[in-house]
């Protein structure tokens, strides 16, 4: 990563802090939004310009699709804002989980020195929390939107907490096993092996 990229990331971080700071009072709040937009644009453009980032068509298509869905989502009636926020959390969780999974497989292909214990802990936290957010937020969207196949009453069954905690324990144990005993380097195969 060049000095220019690092410098633009530094500027973007400062603008993000300012954006949150300007949200303190109504007088400066809209300036805060613009600082956030500027910071995101700077970070996206300087990442896009990195030498390792090549196939532009995919990126253009994904960003265009994001605009196509994002603009209508920002125009929902005020009564639907809670659902929109929940859906947005679901998208954010999905993005984090997918990037984490992709980084894991990429690191695995590049060799064992890539997946250090520290990186594995970070990746596992990202994937676990990301997909937990995805499914939980989708349930919230369904309930708030009163989708008919999502029951409004709370669904309970005997030993529910024990079952959930047990499942979470299994996930943590698997994560721990992946950190302690990282997988052997994979081949560059067309599908996850």
């Amino acid at each position, binding site marked *: 990563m060049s000095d220019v990229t690092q410098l633009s990331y530094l500027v973007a971080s400062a603008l993000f*802090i300012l954006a949150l700071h300007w949200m303190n009072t109504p007088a400066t709040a809209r300036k805060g939004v613009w600082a956030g937009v500027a910071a*995101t644009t700077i*970070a996206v453009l300087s990442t896009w310009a990195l030498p390792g980032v090549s196939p532009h068509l995919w990126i253009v298509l994904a960003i265009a699709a994001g605009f196509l869905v994002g603009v209508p989502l920002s125009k929902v009636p005020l009564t639907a804002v809670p659902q929109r926020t929940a859906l947005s959390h679901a998208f954010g969780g999905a993005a984090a989980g997918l990037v984490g999974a992709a980084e894991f497989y990429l690191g695995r292909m590049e060799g064992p020195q890539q997946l250090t214990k520290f990186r594995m802990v970070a990746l596992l936290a990202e994937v676990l929390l990301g997909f937990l957010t995805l499914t939980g937020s989708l349930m919230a969207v369904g309930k708030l939107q009163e989708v008919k196949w999502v029951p409004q009453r709370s669904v309970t069954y005997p030993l529910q907490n024990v079952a959930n905690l047990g499942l979470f324990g299994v996930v943590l144990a698997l994560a721990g096993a992946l950190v302690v005993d990282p997988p052997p380097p994979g081949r560059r195969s067309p599908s996850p092996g």
Partner: protein
Amino acid sequence: MIGEMWSTLFVFVPASFIGLGVIRRVSRLLHTPLMSLANAISAIAVVGAIIVTGGDGPTWIRVLGAVALFASTTNIVSGFLITDRMLKMLKTPGSGAAGPGESKGKA
């Protein structure tokens, strides 16, 4: 690699304190827009998605990246637009700077 872990933690810990400090005295009126702005800002994870999508990994990994890129872009676009929309509503003529129901809020 040890260097990577420590430099990451040296960013993480001060950033946590800055985050707390910056939002601690937000006026009650702005809690919802702040949440929505923070949601849009968190979509900065888009940077990782761009690197994965544009990288030289196998196609199926780049597909994961592209889906993540789509999801984050959606959050960026709708997050900033809806925050601005909320803030515009705060300033509608008649209600003044403080909206209805804000009289009991302590700024």
